[in-house]
């Protein structure tokens, strides 16, 4: 046992580094002068070290801490994405005026940020329902506080309160579902659950009830209709770096956990080559339920986005609709579908962060989040305008940006599995989404700027961050094979 724990510790270095970073952030906040900037760089350095440890885990396929956590290519892929997200969010937070003016105790801010990231790392690897729930809560509790961090702003306090209430409901559903699952399988780790489900002949109604509840719990986290209603309010009210974090990293971690849980618990190991749902398809067709959820999400969110005038709300609805596109991969649950989901999540991370970042810069300088105030912005400040347009075009899914590649792969995988109607719906909702993305671009470029509008000067740091986000949007749009092969190699889960 002692050897196993020691071996496990050496395979757990990224998470340990994150925990140490968390402690270092608090200490730095207490000790250092000029703490606002310094704490950020301490956390940034900690995340860089974490990233190095994550890279060193490439190719491992182990289960550690008595089957609590898996260190496999799948979790390494997601930990890599989450580290990138964390690094950018630290940069966003340093730039954000909103945090500088309204947020005190910035040390605690970065500490909680690291805590959320730790929870997400655990979500990416958790193979035991106890661990899954703990990771879920670690992420949620810190996110509640972060979304209310600028709490002297009324909307931020409101966002935090709404998030706590809806988040508790989702945790309750998830926990109830997991308990029922333990009750019928007698096991808490997902391998044991799979074995119990496969050996017992009759799948009771309680199995479907519990999976339904687990699905509802996850649907809140990844904002799937009809469990999305907290998202626009929380995304609008939270400080923009945190909104970006919730819209990207939180969703990535939620999808990672959902994919691993469904794939391992409910899929028969012997027949994973073609379609994924045979293990549980016996009575209720799960894939059709997931497909309906995806359809609702894509169409509903895109329709609701048409009426938004607040850029953060618009991007919130856009991110909900993207969750629908990604959920299409879960309908298949085979290797191809999962690889397409992972490619989509990676590209979604970059383009969504870019759009939110520019919205944050504009909101900091012009003190407006209304799209109608964006008039002529592309002419008065061309760099920001053009970059925003590129990110929005990528989100809409046009070539030659990476957004096109993301959509192509997920559509291709879904067609290949024979779900033609789902792709038709997805294509239709892509067309709807064009309207609201283009409306922002039209406002920025086709209208004259009002006389009072001064150009927004951008510092070199801001430009560097924008360019760092623009490069992958273009590179992966043209030269996508490395990302694809990485994702394909990463569909290796421990225990399959």
């Amino acid at each position, binding site marked *: *046992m002692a050897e196993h*724990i020691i071996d*496990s510790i050496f395979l*757990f270095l990224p998470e340990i580094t994150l*925990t140490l970073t*968390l402690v270092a952030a*608090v200490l730095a*906040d*207490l000790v250092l002068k000029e703490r606002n900037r310094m704490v950020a760089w301490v956390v940034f350095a900690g995340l860089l070290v974490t990233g190095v440890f994550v890279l060193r885990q490439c190719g491992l396929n182990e289960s550690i*801490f*008595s089957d*609590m*956590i898996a260190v496999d290519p799948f979790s390494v892929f997601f930990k890599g994405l989450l580290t990138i997200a964390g690094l950018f969010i630290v940069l966003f937070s340093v730039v954000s005026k909103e945090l500088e003016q309204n947020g*005190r*105790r910035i*040390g*605690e801010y970065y*500490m*909680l940020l690291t*805590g959320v990231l*730790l929870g997400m790392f*655990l979500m990416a690897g958790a193979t*035991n329902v*106890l*661990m899954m729930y*703990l*990771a879920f*809560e*670690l992420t949620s*509790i*810190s996110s*509640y*506080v972060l979304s*209310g*961090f600028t*709490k*002297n702003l009324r909307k931020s306090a409101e966002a*935090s309160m709404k998030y706590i209430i809806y988040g508790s409901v989702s945790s309750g559903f998830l926990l109830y579902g997991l308990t029922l699952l333990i*009750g*019928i*399988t*007698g096991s808490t780790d997902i391998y044991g659950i799979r074995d*119990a489900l496969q050996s017992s002949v009759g799948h*009771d*109604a*309680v199995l479907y*009830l519990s999976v339904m509840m687990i699905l509802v719990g996850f649907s809140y986290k990844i904002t799937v209709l009809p469990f999305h209603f907290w998202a626009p309010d929380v995304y609008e009210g939270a400080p923009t770096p945190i909104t970006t974090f919730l819209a990207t990293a939180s969703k990535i971690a939620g999808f990672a956990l959902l994919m691993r849980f469904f794939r391992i618990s409910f899929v028969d190991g012997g027949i994973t080559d073609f379609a994924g749902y045979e293990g549980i398809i016996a009575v209720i067709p799960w894939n059709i339920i997931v497909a309906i959820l995806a359809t609702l999400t894509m169409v509903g969110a895109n329709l609701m986005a048409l009426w938004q005038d607040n850029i953060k709300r618009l991007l919130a609805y856009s991110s909900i609709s993207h969750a629908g596109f990604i959920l299409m991969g879960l309908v298949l649950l085979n290797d191809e579908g999962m690889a397409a989901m992972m490619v989509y999540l990676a590209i979604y991370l970059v383009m969504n962060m870019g759009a939110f970042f520019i919205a944050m810069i504009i909101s900091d300088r012009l003190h407006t989040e209304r799209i109608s105030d964006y008039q002529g912005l592309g002419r008065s400040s061309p760099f920001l305008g053009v970059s925003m347009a590129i990110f929005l075009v990528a989100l809409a899914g046009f070539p030659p940006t990476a957004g096109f590649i993301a959509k192509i792969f997920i559509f291709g995988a879904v067609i290949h599995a024979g779900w033609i109607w789902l792709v038709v719906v997805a294509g239709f909702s892509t067309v709807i989404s064009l309207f609201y993305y283009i409306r922002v671009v039209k406002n920025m470029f086709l209208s004259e700027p009002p006389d009072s509008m001064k150009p927004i000067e951008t510092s070199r740091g801001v430009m560097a961050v924008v360019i760092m986000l623009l490069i992958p949007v273009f590179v992966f749009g043209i030269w996508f094979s490395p990302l694809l092969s990485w994702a394909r190699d990463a569909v290796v889960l421990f225990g399959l």
Partner: protein
Amino acid sequence: MELSAFLFYFFALLIIGSAAIMVFSKNIVHSAFALMFTLAGLAAFYALLYAGFVAVTQLLVYVGGILVIVLFGVMLTTRGYFEKIKTRTVHLLPAALFSMAIAIILITVFLSTEWILAPLEEEVFTVQGIGELLMTDYMLPFQVVGVLLLLAIIGAVLMATRVAGEEEPPSASG
């Protein structure tokens, strides 16, 4: 009826009854006291399952600690501590139908399920077993709970401190 079965049903009724009082009472102090009976009844359940350590912890932490803090919180924050909470029922019919449907589904499912039942082991000392498991198989969750509680405390301090306009000395951070 066996004594243990009798005790089980007695405490089950106590838990459900006091939980109902907690939810439906409009006086927050009454609610808090009803919650105490719910939590104490749960501790009795653990004791009936020979989980002595968990039962004692439940009493110490929930009944002894959290409940007292809830009562103190109520007394220190509200102006009059017997103030009626403003409650209003909205969407009575849909909510009732929804709850009924959920209750029926849950009850039918629970009755029709073959649960995995572990035999009851009459252990007197469970502390050693728990301690060994926490240091071996459940070491990681044990540590992660530590981080979770740390973040929860700091988050609560962050949320609870007053900011409305006034300047705070930086040394007051939690």
